[in-house]
């Protein structure tokens, strides 16, 4: 978390903070570029650590659910260094590019996938002030950018020149394109509640009630809970997590779109998966579970501890949702592709539309009654 401290202190916008460090008159584009580099470095570090921790957590969760231990050897306590060892192994492994692969696509795909996932982190509010860019269209930006990963997956599947990979890519395309709709629609409920697409604003609006005025506890809780379930289901599909892990379903497609990848390129896909999981969990946290707000945290407002604690609360809350994703993965079987489509179009989308209707009536009625 210490990596995020300069952020937290930065105020709203990294460039403002940088501007304060440099003498006046430094061109804006230099500050912007510098800010972008710093932001990228911070996000990259955060995502790397996150991916390492998440792989370890995933394996421990899987292990303990399956009445075994998971990794126990590397690093002493419960194999905490296993992910680091794996990371090092992937880094030094030979980078194999198939002779018959479409080399350009094959090489670009992992970078595109990871790049898109990292770009979406820009709009995530880690704390009241810890946000790289507080976009007014925050959540819209996240959805738009993160779906670029699909393009990378399709490139990977096509570029691998492997039929199983191609199948994975086609499934990914069909699945993600379909689930953008319920995902977007399920976000309409909180958006209507907050009246804003900005995640940062959502966080600020949930700060009342001694830090417990979360959307799920608000007067709209009866909309919040079903909409969160719908959002979470769509998010699982969006992040290719079980039961929607069809693009890489190992019992059908061997390893799906990343069958032919190895070494560092494979690790990019891996990091992307965990980054995407975290991203969706963070959006869920920000919109439904009070973002960085927690009872008692307000008391510290103004102190030096406030910003890091707020970031910690946000990350922990998001990680709990990530854990739920893992928990679901190790519980349920995998859906078939036509059922994925059925579920998206016949179940999630209509249900979301019903909720959107109810929410709009409810928010209108609230506004009308309170005379706002």
């Amino acid at each position, binding site marked *: 978390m210490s990596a995020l401290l300069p952020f937290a202190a930065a105020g709203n916008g990294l460039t403002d903070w940088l501007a304060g460090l440099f003498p006046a008159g430094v061109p804006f584009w230099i500050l912007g570029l510098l800010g972008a580099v710093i932001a990228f470095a911070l996000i990259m570090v955060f995502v790397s650590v996150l991916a390492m921790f998440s792989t370890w957590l995933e394996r421990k969760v*899987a292990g303990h*659910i*399956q*009445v*075994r231990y998971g990794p126990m050897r590397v690093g002493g306590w419960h194999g905490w260094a296993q992910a680091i060892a794996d990371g090092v192994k992937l880094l030094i492994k030979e980078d194999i590019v198939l002779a018959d692969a479409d080399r350009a696509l094959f090489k670009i795909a992992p970078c595109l996938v990871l790049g898109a996932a990292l770009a979406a982190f820009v709009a995530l509010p880690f704390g009241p002030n810890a946000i790289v860019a507080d976009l007014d269209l925050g959540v819209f930006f996240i959805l738009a950018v993160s779906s670029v990963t699909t393009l990378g997956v399709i490139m990977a599947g096509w570029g691998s020149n492997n*039929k*199983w990979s191609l*199948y994975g890519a*086609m499934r990914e395309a069909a699945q993600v394109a379909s689930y953008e709709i319920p995902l977007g629609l399920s976000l309409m409920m909180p958006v209507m509640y907050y009246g804003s697409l900005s995640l940062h604003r959502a966080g600020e609006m949930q700060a009342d009630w001694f830090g417990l005025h979360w959307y799920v506890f608000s007067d709209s809780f009866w909309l919040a809970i079903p909409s969160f379930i719908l959002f979470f289901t769509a998010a699982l599909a969006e992040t290719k997590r*079980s*039961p929607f*892990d*069809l693009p890489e*379903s*190992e*019992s*059908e497609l*061997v390893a799906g779109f990343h069958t032919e990848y190895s070494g560092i390129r494979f690790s990019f896909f891996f990091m992307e998966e965990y980054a995407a999981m975290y991203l969706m969990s963070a959006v869920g946290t920000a919109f439904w579970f009070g973002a960085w707000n927690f009872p008692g945290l307000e008391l510290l407002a103004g102190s030096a501890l406030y910003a890091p604690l707020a970031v910690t609360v946000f990350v922990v809350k998001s990680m709990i949702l990530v854990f739920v994703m893992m928990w679901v993965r*190790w*519980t*349920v*079987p*995998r*859906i*078939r*592709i*036509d*059922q994925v489509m059925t579920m998206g179009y016949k179940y999630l989308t209509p249900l979301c539309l019903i909720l959107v209707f109810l929410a709009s009536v409810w928010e209108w009625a609230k506004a009308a009654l309170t005379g706002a």
Partner: protein
Amino acid sequence: MDDTTMERPLREGERLVELDVRTQDVEINMGPQHPATHGVLRVLLRADGEILTGAQSHLGYLHRCAEKIGESVDWLQYLPYTDRYDYLSAMNNNLAYSLAVEKLLGIEVPERAQYIRVILAELNRICSHLVAVGTYGLDIGAFTPFFYALRERELLLDIFEKICGARLTYAFIRPGGLMNDAPAGWTDQVRAFTDLFERKWREYWDLLVDNKIFVERTANVGVISEEQAIAWGCTGPMLRGSGVDWDLRRDQPYLVYDRLDFEVVVGQGYRGTVGDCFDRNYVRMYEMLESNRIVRQCLEQMPEGEIQHPEVGLVLRPAPGEAYVGIENPRGELGHYLVSDGNKIARRLRVRGPSFSNLALAEHLLPGCMLADAAAIIGSVDIVVGETDR
């Protein structure tokens, strides 16, 4: 998929436009190394997108010449080879072979040996079905039930280890009886397992079989009609899953099965059509409970006494002749057709493996299904490639 194709007569003013879209089917190799083919089975699939249009099995990657070996080793020496056709139900394989040799010899083993044989065969059936159900979960994409199933299987392997010393390839039930008598405390261990198992069974049901996704993936998928199952010579859960009430343990009883009270589980279209993947899995699930019941009864009825026919030595010389004995293995009828010329080596040793016949039908079920169903259907047939290839 039910309402995607609608063929109706053209209405007034409508005309049919044919699009000149030329597609080419993809040919995919599922196997020999593939997570869902349970060993080195290769299925050549032809697919139009996600829909399969053809399938062809290619066997032989695990062919170990069991029948040829049978013509070159002693009757007793062949026993360890029987473990290796269907390595998940080695006790049953031993039993099938031993019964066939005993038929050639014309002997019946002592009663205690028969009871211990039934206990072992039924525990082995549970053992095998646990793997079948667990790996079926894996094929469908559920990982955790597999580990729960293996956990109970481990207890069973301990039981087998205690009585015979081996955990997978037992070579324990031999022509003429058993290799060894049950050690002290063994029956208590078996009884403890039967009690535990019924509790644990519920977990597999709740976690896997009753899961909505599992039901959706298996119900109405890979339907085998009663006629089809019979014509293709399917046996075991494949046949019973299709609604045919046939179990060699009841209908042509061997050993002491005629004294035991058990139900034959028959697929009844619990969640879809009779004979779909769900029903086959359902039959396996409930057969485990029935086996558990049989084991309990055997423990109660088991007499003391010899475990070995007194005149059967280590070198067997059956009379010149032939015998066919088929028994109900976890996967169906395992038959041994033995031809002896009176020497200590078989003249012909034919193994009729259940997976072999069951798999022959599987490739005919695949066309028209989706790619993901290929894993579901092949998984529901529950083949062990060691047996199809022998």
